[in-house]
């Protein structure tokens, strides 16, 4: 199983790199010209994201460095305990929408402390894959087209995160 997954991951990108130009070639597309034409947009898009990403990462960075996470964890753990969520995994739930790297760090720490095959280890692994880094995605994607009024995007993203995290807790409790 693990080998099979590894093989798929290893081949996915080389396969796409070959398949799409090959299809274009058969369809008589000038593949080299089309490629450079598309690639031109890469620079502008990347640069346009900068202000949005700076704003978002600074506020998340300040929040993380302050130690406010511990306060929030002790504030939330009586509530999260009601749905069978161990207090140790609360920082994981808070971190997941804020920072992908941060959440990976918390998960790695929980796995090494409690064991990969413990309930906490498994639960945090499922939480990691259950949702995305909402704040990062919104900053980058809206930033790329200079959207400032995001309407219901953040509430919807956070509700989806909450559902993903709660489902992760329930599934881990049921299956393991």
């Amino acid at each position, binding site marked *: 199983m693990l080998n099979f997954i590894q093989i798929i991951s290893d081949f996915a990108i080389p396969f796409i790199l070959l398949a799409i130009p090959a*299809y274009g070639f058969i369809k008589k597309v000038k593949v080299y010209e089309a490629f450079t034409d598309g690639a031109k947009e890469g620079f502008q898009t990347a640069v346009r994201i900068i202000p949005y990403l700076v704003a978002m990462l600074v506020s998340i960075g300040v929040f993380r460095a*302050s130690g406010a996470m511990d306060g929030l964890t002790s504030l939330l753990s009586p509530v999260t305990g009601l749905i069978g969520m161990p207090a140790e995994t609360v920082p994981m739930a808070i971190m997941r929408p804020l920072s992908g790297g941060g959440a990976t760090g918390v998960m790695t720490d929980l796995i090494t402390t409690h064991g990969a095959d413990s309930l906490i280890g498994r639960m945090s*692994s499922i939480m990691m894959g259950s949702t995305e880094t909402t704040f990062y995605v919104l900053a980058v994607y809206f930033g790329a087209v200079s959207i400032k009024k995001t309407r219901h995007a953040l509430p919807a993203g956070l509700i989806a995160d909450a559902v993903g995290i709660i489902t992760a807790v329930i599934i881990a409790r049921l299956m393991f």
Partner: protein
Amino acid sequence: MINIIWFLMIAVGVIFGAINGNITAITDAAISSAELAVEISIGLIGVMALWLGIMKIAEKSGLIQLLSRALKIIMVKLFPDVPPEHPAMGAIIMNMAANVLGLGNAATPLGLKAMNELQTLNPTEDTATDAMVTFLAINTSSVTLIPASVIAIRASAGSANPAEIIGPTIIATAASTVAAVITVKLLQRLPRFQMDIENENIK
């Protein structure tokens, strides 16, 4: 909403940092995060160019239109405001495909391409459309089938079966994606989230 949360994270951070005696850590975090943001953005240029180039070939060869047609029924339901043959549909599909396969590097450029295409349909300059919010809600709830990095970390921590979390993860991510779509469709009807065309900067 985003204004409140952004401000709260900074305010709570600075106040907590001062109380905890972490105030220099706040300064360091602010500066290093700002630097990191630029590093990430600049680092994106190469991969962006690569995938946007490949995407252009897929577009010119008709591959994307082929994909769009195959998934038309679902896409039209999810994005009723986007014409079925619009290039935005193709870009959205490519982004989702990359996400499902766990190709994060490819997913971001394709997603940004989709946002650019959706922006061409936007009557305003700086306000998100329903289609954009729906697209991002699906994106932020993640549809990854194989969480490769989680499996790798579990394997290196000596798990007896590192991949056992694939099934539960698919269930959890499916639940969050369904919740995202339902929430978006409900919230977009609320008066406070309406697009107030009259007061927007029309292009």
